[in-house]
């Protein structure tokens, strides 16, 4: 590493030039980073049966998205309202990519056209007559005379921009349709809601990021002010982030809601790398070491420990690559790349900039010369850096924070049994409480509950009974065979009768029965005739060719209200129902739909977290064992992480928080930050132990010196991510809170539990090692004196 340090000091301009070129290249590739919403591809592996059924069978054949326009007033069936609705419908049907518009006005106009050859809204008596014979579809569109809705269907495969365009045209069409005064028109539905959420999120995100930046600057100025250029770690880590974005574009890793949460983590750990190099080089400068020697010493003493921390942290993230959820795998991969980038940025760019800055100013060297001279005698015979560390920690470059950390460590060592027992007991309780933390499966609860589009959406759900549904895809050589249709009818009725959660079922059978006086014809030709006469929008939604049909089971708000486990139980009950009401031979039935995919994938996102954390811990332990070949050194960083994971579970439960796709990465966050702090502390401890020989003294120096740097980096993350807590979005706010708590706990355990474990485990060994060395020296002396005597 000394050679690497020498190379860095010999080639500063090359390093800066390469960093600039890399940054330009990264900006180029960063432009090709794609944003990916919570879609199926990001949540389910393409090879999984869930994806195959949902995407290939359901979405490709039946999948549509809907924008809903809700009309409320005295009499929505009045001819004036119907005329405006038809105007609106005809306008929207011409909008590119709109598949169909379903409304009572369309039903009335289509019936009028079928009966009288004119597609128009007739007189009020005729409207009432048509509506009276409307059947179940009409009931679903107009639950009473005061409310009705229009549904605008578009294909699921269109882009978000194209969907936004349809939404914009729909909103304009509301004005153009010229609804009578006194009627309230609301554009809502999942698409509209998602668009509003994205807009609101983007708006608040900018303000929060700005606040986070200001708070991070404030934290560094407050806690890292004892060094020259205390704000430098921020641009250094940002450079690493820019390179990471470039790598994302190059490797085509999409930016998802989960991979977004990798950035706080990267900033949190990356800033620590930058601060460790910065703190050490500044320490060397303060001692009056010449810039070139200071840079070499820094690389020599910090590059390897930070690299060990980096490798261990990466081992923690490798566990995430085993997840079945692509989003989580992307998150793990992104963290691994990002950490390497942040390390390279801190090692090469951070050290080079500080070296060049000190070389040019040279002021501290001159100031330190006098001090160095005074100390020269004391250091005589000692070997450079190692000798300079043997003084009192508090009297040599110690900051106020360092002293506080030192005192805390000292206190914990004296009360070590109580500290350890309390920490472990709280971890055990937290671990138990963690199993009681619920999972938030309803994505609508991630957003501000007073967001107007959500209020509208909930209003619509209250009137129309919610929009959660499950789809059964029925496949056969000919699904329109009367025997198959009769089974579909029987199964639908069975679900309606036996399950309270089922509010209604709609399938091709519903419309065939409606057109045939409530029965299914026994003759296949008659069935085909009825199907041919059905509106194209109905056929497109419920039938694909003649070999696949869909039964849409309306669950109201069940998926949102039941929670993950209960909804999972309900789907298992549906599976049993299929065994009870067995499909005819040659007919296969598969269950799918948005609610099911969302519940399964959010469950996979959140419930695998304990396994991933344990796997991460095991991997870290094995890797530490390989690196150090020492059981104690391998165990030391792992035990405090176990404690933090437990504490975080307790905080999640007591804080009334729920697991979301963002907080599901909590284990990785704790492993990443916790292992980082523990390993840096441990490496410095052994370095100082080598220098001073006495474990207590070595621990005091370590706590003082590295403590201030760890507190500075930890508190920078805490201040920065404290800004996220102010977000009106629950998911972001909770993530901010969890990140802050994880960092605080990682810091607390590093200076308490870890210190205690390190000292207790090491003291005896070191004392014995020293005694053994003393014995060997004494024996050597005895042999020498024996030889001399002879």
């Amino acid at each position: 590493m000394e050679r690497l340090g020498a190379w860095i000091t010999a080639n500063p301009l090359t390093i800066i030039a390469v960093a600039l070129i890399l940054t330009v290249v990264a900006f180029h590739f960063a432009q090709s980073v794609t944003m990916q919403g919570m879609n199926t591809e990001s949540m389910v592996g393409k090879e999984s049966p869930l994806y195959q059924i949902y995407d290939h069978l359901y979405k490709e054949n039946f999948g549509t998205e809907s924008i809903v326009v809700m009309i409320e007033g005295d009499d929505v069936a009045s001819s004036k309202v119907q005329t405006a609705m038809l105007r609106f419908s005809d306008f929207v049907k011409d909008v590119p990519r709109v598949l169909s518009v379903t409304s009572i006005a369309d039903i009335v106009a289509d019936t009028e056209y079928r009966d009288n050859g004119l597609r128009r809204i007739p007189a009020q008596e005729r409207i009432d007559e048509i509506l009276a014979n409307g059947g179940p579809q009409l009931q679903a569109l107009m639950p009473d005379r005061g409310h009705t809705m229009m549904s605008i269907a578009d294909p699921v495969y269109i882009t978000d921009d194209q969907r936004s365009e349809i939404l914009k045209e729909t909103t304009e069409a509301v004005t153009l349709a010229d609804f009578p005064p006194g009627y309230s028109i609301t554009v809502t539905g999942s698409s509209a809601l998602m668009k509003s959420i994205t807009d609101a999120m983007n708006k608040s995100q900018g303000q929060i990021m700005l606040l986070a930046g200001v708070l991070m600057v404030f934290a560094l100025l407050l806690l890292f002010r004892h060094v020259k250029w205390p704000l430098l770690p921020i641009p250094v880590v940002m450079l690493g982030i820019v390179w990471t974005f470039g790598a994302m574009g190059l490797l085509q890793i999409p930016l998802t809601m989960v991979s977004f949460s990798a950035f706080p983590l990267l900033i949190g750990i990356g800033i620590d790398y930058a601060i460790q190099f910065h703190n050490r080089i500044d320490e060397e400068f303060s001692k009056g070491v010449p810039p070139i020697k200071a840079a070499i010493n820094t690389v020599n003493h910090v590059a390897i420990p930070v690299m060990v921390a980096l490798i261990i942290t990466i081992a923690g993230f490798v566990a995430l690559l085993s997840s079945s959820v692509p989003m989580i795998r992307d998150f793990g991969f992104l963290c691994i790349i990002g950490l390497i980038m942040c390390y390279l940025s801190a090692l090469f760019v951070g050290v080079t900039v500080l070296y060049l800055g000190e070389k040019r100013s040279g002021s501290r060297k001159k100031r330190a010369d006098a001090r160095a001279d005074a100390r020269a005698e004391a250091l005589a015979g000692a070997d450079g850096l190692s000798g300079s560390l043997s003084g009192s920690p508090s009297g040599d470059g110690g900051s106020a924070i360092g002293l506080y950390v030192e005192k805390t460590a000292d206190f914990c060592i004296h009360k070590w049994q109580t500290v350890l027992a309390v920490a472990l007991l709280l971890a055990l309780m937290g671990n138990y409480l963690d199993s009681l933390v619920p999972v938030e499966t309803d994505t609508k609860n991630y957003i501000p509950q007073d967001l107007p589009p959500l209020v509208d959406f909930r209003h619509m759900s209250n009137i129309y009974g919610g929009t959660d549904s499950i789809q059964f895809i029925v496949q056969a050589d000919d699904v329109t065979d009367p025997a198959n249709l009769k089974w579909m009818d029987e199964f639908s009725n069975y679900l309606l009768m036996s399950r309270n959660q089922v509010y209604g079922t709609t399938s091709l059978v519903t419309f065939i029965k409606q057109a045939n006086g409530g029965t299914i014809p026994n003759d296949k030709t008659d069935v085909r005739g009825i199907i041919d006469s059905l509106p194209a929008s109905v056929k497109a939604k419920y039938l694909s060719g003649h070999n696949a049909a869909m039964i849409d089971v309306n669950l109201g708000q069940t998926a949102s209200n039941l929670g993950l486990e209960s909804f999972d139980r309900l789907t298992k009950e549906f599976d049993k129902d299929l065994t009870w009401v067995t499909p005819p031979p040659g007919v296969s039935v598969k269950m799918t739909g948005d609610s099911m995919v969302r519940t399964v994938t959010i469950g996979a996102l959140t419930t695998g977290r304990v396994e991933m954390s344990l796997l991460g811990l095991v991997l870290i332990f094995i890797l530490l064992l390989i690196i150090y070949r020492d059981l104690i050194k391998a165990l030391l960083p792992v035990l405090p992480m176990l404690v933090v994971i437990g504490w975080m579970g307790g905080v999640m439960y007591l804080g009334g928080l729920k697991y979301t796709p963002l907080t599901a990465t909590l284990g990785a966050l704790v492993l990443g930050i916790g292992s980082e702090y523990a390993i840096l502390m441990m490496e410095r401890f052994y370095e100082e132990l080598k220098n001073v020989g006495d474990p207590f003294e070595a621990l005091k120096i370590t706590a003082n010196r590295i403590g201030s740097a760890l507190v500075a980096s930890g508190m920078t993350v805490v201040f920065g991510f404290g800004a996220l807590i102010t977000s009106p979005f629950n998911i972001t706010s909770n993530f901010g809170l969890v990140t802050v708590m994880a960092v605080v706990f990682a810091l607390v355990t590093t200076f308490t539990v870890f210190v205690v474990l390190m000292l207790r485990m090491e003291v005896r060994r070191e004392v014995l090692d020293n005694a053994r060395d003393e014995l060997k020296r004494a024996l050597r002396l005895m042999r020498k004196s024996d030889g001399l005597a002879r």
Partner: protein
Amino acid sequence: MDGISRASWRDRFWAWLIDVLLMGILWSSLMTISTIGASSAEGLGILATMLFIYWTALEGYRGQSLGKMLLNIVVVGPVGEKIGFQDSALESFGKAFLLPLDFLVGWIVYRGSSQRAFNRFSDTVVADANEVSWCRH
């Protein structure tokens, strides 16, 4: 045997507590994964079994569990010799599955020997690690 300084009940309690808490944390994670009730007989049985395996393995291997390492105490034979896995399994059985009984019998019947009943059965004692020659070197 008389030459070996026996560890105090206080040190042994702290070592036991640390071991139980550490294994308890791992156990509660396993309970979450396996969805077995923590307070069920099955759950408690798993905890006792985990503790038994942990103590047998570590104390049979080097005479010290993590808790004992931190407290600097060690399980040894009557004259301070290393114990094997067989002795370790026997003395661990008592503290993993029958601790109240094991402790009370030892405390009342073998008063003054600083031994639990299963220590007595396995002919083991818990000593100060600094007093044990193989542990020192």
